[in-house]
């Protein structure tokens, strides 16, 4: 493996283009001006702009939306004029009751475990960066990568609802209506994806850069 130069790009005043990955020398600019990548034209920053503020705001919004996502029904099965609302957890319970264990596990993991762990992971990463923690930066980077990669899988339930709603249209016998919980749940997934995107993992490593500690 290629040993790294003992310096980060930011310390060498080099900004890595977030789109085409070219390194460019950052020169002091008058306020209000933005540097652009000479190769692809994307805006240049040493770190993602307002990374912590944006990620915090989005994570908090996701926590708040997580409550209606789990308490409101994600869909209602209306049969013979009688409606039976389904929440995320009752959907998992129904799968277990029907003996569909593998499917119940899949939905439980994607709809319950992943969103909760994602919110906790983001909160932990944000607190650790804010406290300038130097503890296990490599493991925290891996945690970030997993958090970023796994979030989209929570959309399984939302897609399932879109299929059920289109299929089960039997008039008075049975129809399936989407519920407000599904909207809140989709919002949690999308907002945590944006939160993970605005978090800059290089901030984890910047805490190690403190010169007075050398």
């Amino acid at each position, binding site marked *: 493996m290629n040993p790294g130069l003992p310096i980060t790009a930011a310390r060498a005043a080099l900004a890595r283009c977030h789109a085409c990955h070219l390194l460019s020398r950052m020169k002091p600019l008058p306020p209000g001006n933005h540097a652009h990548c000479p190769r692809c034209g994307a805006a240049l920053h040493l770190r993602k702009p307002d990374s912590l503020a944006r990620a915090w705001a989005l994570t908090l919004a996701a926590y708040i939306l997580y409550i209606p996502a789990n308490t409101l029904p994600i869909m209602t099965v209306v049969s013979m004029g009688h409606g039976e609302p389904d929440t995320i957890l009752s959907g998992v319970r129904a799968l277990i009751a029907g003996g569909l264990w593998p499917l119940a596990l899949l939905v439980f993991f994607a709809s319950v475990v992943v969103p909760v762990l994602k919110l906790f992971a983001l909160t932990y990463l944000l607190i650790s960066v804010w406290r300038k923690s130097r503890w296990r930066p490599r493991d925290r980077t891996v945690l970030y990568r997993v958090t970023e990669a796994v979030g989209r899988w929570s959309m399984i339930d939302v897609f399932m609802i879109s299929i059920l709603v289109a299929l*089960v249209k039997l008039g008075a016998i049975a129809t399936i209506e989407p519920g407000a919980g599904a909207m809140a749940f989709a919002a949690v997934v999308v907002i945590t994806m944006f939160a993970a995107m605005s978090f800059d993992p290089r901030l984890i490593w910047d805490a190690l850069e403190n010169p007075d500690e050398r």
Partner: protein
Amino acid sequence: MNDPNLATLSASAADALVACHDCDLLYRKRPLREGEKARCARCGALLYTRKPNSIERTLTLALAALILFALANIYPLLDFQFQGRAQQSSVLSGVRELYAQGMWTLAMVVFVASILAPLLKLLALLYVLLPLHFGRRPWRMAQVFRWIETLHPWAMTEVYLLGVLVAFVKLSDIATIVPGVALYSFAALIVVMAATDAALEPEAIWERLEPCR
């Protein structure tokens, strides 16, 4: 740690350097053999790779993916039969039904994740790669190629397929569900799309932009 000589890092020398996207450590770029990967020694992130015939292979796979994408959206996904009544569902009908029931934000999320983002990603790839294959540079290539990375997390074809399978199993004990052509096309599509992503070497494309600097 030694203090490196910053004066040696002139603007042109920056071309020969790469920075890790997860921990920002600098590396001197070294030529790789085909199929090799360079990883960051500090945090383990992938720095750069070299893939054989990246443009041609990605182009072929993206064309195949586009055909499968068309099949997956034209044909019905599932056929629902209950007491002599039948209802077909396609990807678009799911979106339409959510919209009709007043859930237009949900309809939009499903539309973007299952149709729009994967389609735009494939079209952007073809727009960039097809002219490059014939030795031409497409108009506004940099902007279009930038979208591909932006669109990537929002194209959720594989997650969508799992959602369909869950719906399929849930309904199959109360009604007769017949999988349609689109379901098989979807299964093939996620394999081909994963292969497309794996064949693409973005660095090789970006380097094509160099002469115009």
